[in-house]
């Protein structure tokens, strides 16, 4: 009987300690985060020429995808014979600020989904058409067209009780050492963003302009593609397009960049 009482007390004490420890951990995680005014978008790290390319819509190759996306927006597709515009109307009004809120929690799937997934779910459920392949020209074009409508608006992903665990998972992934080189995202993008890696600026990893035109890719790409690039650089395997882990990381990065201006479709070196 005594032993049981002791055990109970011990368990309670242990739970209390654990709670204290978690609270301390949460606090330290917040304290480690970059103060909001000190954050810099990838744009700030670019050369004058690359900035000029992004700033001029007739020189920004991302706008070629936007033109394609606008055409797709108004094209009927699938068994439902419906275009995006038939439900959402003029994207300039209806899609304003939408990209700045993604990844967003999807109540039907009980997890956050990114903009490309949202477009594809809309496509398969409302248009009843075959979803686009990840990184396909059409999917990127629609995403770029939708993202353009949020240009200049602050990133504002919504975090509530349902999405908080996913944000936390993304935060942990950001800080977790992984891959053959045993590196975490934070080692570069929190601790060494003011330095260079093989001649290139490391940057703070704020995804303000996705999908963006990367000169290295000679094409448009999504944030997931960029993350997979980075992961391949640290020799980490196992993240496929659309993976929940990747979306969690996207969610954390967008939350980390909250309040920064969307500049999609951006140009990066």
């Amino acid at each position: 009987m005594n032993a049981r009482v002791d055990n109970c007390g011990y368990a309670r004490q242990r739970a209390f300690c654990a709670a204290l420890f978690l609270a301390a951990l949460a606090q330290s995680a917040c304290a480690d985060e970059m103060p909001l005014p000190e954050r810099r978008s990838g744009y700030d790290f670019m050369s004058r020429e690359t900035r000029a390319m992004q700033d001029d819509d007739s020189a920004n190759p991302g706008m070629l995808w936007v033109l394609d996306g606008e055409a797709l927006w108004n094209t009927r597709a699938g068994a439902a014979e419906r275009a995006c515009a038939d439900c959402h109307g003029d994207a300039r009004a209806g899609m304003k600020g939408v990209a700045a809120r993604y990844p967003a929690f999807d109540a039907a799937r009980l997890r956050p989904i990114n903009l490309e997934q949202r477009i594809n779910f809309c496509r398969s459920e409302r248009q009843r058409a075959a979803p686009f392949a990840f990184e396909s020209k059409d999917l990127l074009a629609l995403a770029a067209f939708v993202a353009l409508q949020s240009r200049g608006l602050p990133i504002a992903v919504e975090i509530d009780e349902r999405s908080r665990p996913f944000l936390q998972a993304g935060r942990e992934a950001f800080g977790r050492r992984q891959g053959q080189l045993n590196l975490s995202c934070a080692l570069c993008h929190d601790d060494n963003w003011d330095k260079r890696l093989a001649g290139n600026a490391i940057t703070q990893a704020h995804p303000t302009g996705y999908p963006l035109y990367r000169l290295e890719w000679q094409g448009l790409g999504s944030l997931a593609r960029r993350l997979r690039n980075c992961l391949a650089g640290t020799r980490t395997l196992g993240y496929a397009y659309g993976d929940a882990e990747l979306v969690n990381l996207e969610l954390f990065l967008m939350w980390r960049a909250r309040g920064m201006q969307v500049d999609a479709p951006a140009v990066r070196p």
Partner: protein
Amino acid sequence: MARALINVPAAARRGDVIEIKALIAHEMETGFRRTQLGVLVPRDIITQFLCTYNGAEIFRAEFHPAIAANPFVAFSTIATESGAIVFKWTGDNGFSATESVAISVA
């Protein structure tokens, strides 16, 4: 047809130097790359860009495999008269694209 973005001032004064910018969507496949199975990807590039101002040639460029995808060309000319500035890209596999913009010169 391939998508293109043209930037020409809509109006100019006679004798003004105007800047013309032309961007076109194209893969510009070099012909030097191989697939993962080692098969050579055939060359597919734009080979010529031609710009005419009311029928008169004002700019011409030959493109080669080292030109990046989605080639962007910027150049300047003197506004002489109102009319049309026509851009024409031609390339491998019968590629051809034409764009025309109007300019009014006072």
